[in-house]
């Protein structure tokens, strides 16, 4: 860990467990499912009157966290972890689905910093940041969760 990055890494570690996006409740409306299906080119079930038989695409859960944006700016949005850890690279995602979402239900979405690890590499170092999002139903039972990994390569 370079001298300049050590404080950032320490600060990131201190933030483990912190809520990164204010938790919110989201209703799984049919328009959201329609929009997802249309935009992904999935077989459309839009307009089906029997919503109980409609399947909510599983990875729609990824899009339930809605962040605030400055609509007067064309800048890239600030990262969830705003610390000088190096250049970020998408390290992948792991979803766990307990049960399918149901159109019309309301779920609670919570996103927090799950872990921060550092690995020394031959060139410099790699900081591995995992953010966990949990989706729970009205009975506070977990419906789905996902862990998103971002790799920060330290500048050599």
């Amino acid at each position, binding site marked *: 860990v370079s001298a300049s990055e050590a404080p950032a890494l320490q600060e990131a570690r201190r933030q483990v467990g912190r809520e990164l996006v204010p938790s919110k409740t989201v209703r799984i409306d049919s328009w959201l499912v329609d929009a997802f299906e249309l935009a*992904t080119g999935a077989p459309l079930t839009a307009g089906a009157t029997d919503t109980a038989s409609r*399947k909510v*695409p599983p990875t729609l859960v990824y*899009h339930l966290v809605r*962040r605030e944006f400055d609509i007067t700016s064309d*800048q*890239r949005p600030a990262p969830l972890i705003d610390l000088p850890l190096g250049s970020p690279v998408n390290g992948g995602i792991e979803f766990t689905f307990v049960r399918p979402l149901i159109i019309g239900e309301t779920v609670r979405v919570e996103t927090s910093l799950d872990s921060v690890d550092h690995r020394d590499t031959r060139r410099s170092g790699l900081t591995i940041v995992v953010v966990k999002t949990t989706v729970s139903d009205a009975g506070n039972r977990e419906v789905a969760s996902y862990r998103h990994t971002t790799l920060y390569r330290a500048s050599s």
Partner: protein
Amino acid sequence: MNSTPSAGIGPDSVLEITRPPIAITQLVMFCGSMGIFDPIHFSADIAMREGFPGIVVNGSLRVAFLAQLATSLLGPGDQLTRLTCRHRSMILIGDSITTRARIESISGRAAGRQEMKLKLWNETARNGLADEGTATIELASNHTDDEKQDVG
């Protein structure tokens, strides 16, 4: 979108979906409806200013493509319980994505409900392997033995 038929599939069967080249309309629709407002996904000027060779296709859209193929295998009562994805190379606007899945295993009955494990990946002609992932599908216990035989 063209997909291979799923009838008669078994272990090591490879299924695929080929899609037309990703268009700006699809990305704008996806970003707008899903609340993704990083302009590298819809502005070539901003993407190139940020050092990308062109408009960048969202990682979450690519994951959705993997999930789409995995869920196309679900029968009544089956459930996708796990999905993973790692991105291996960049996908840009205009790339055609082919999504493939291979059935890796179907677990025995000893553990109760059966599980089907899949390997999934996205490829482009320009860069080859773009994403790779896995999926686990819990098979409904009310499948008949004949139906289970059909999937391995």
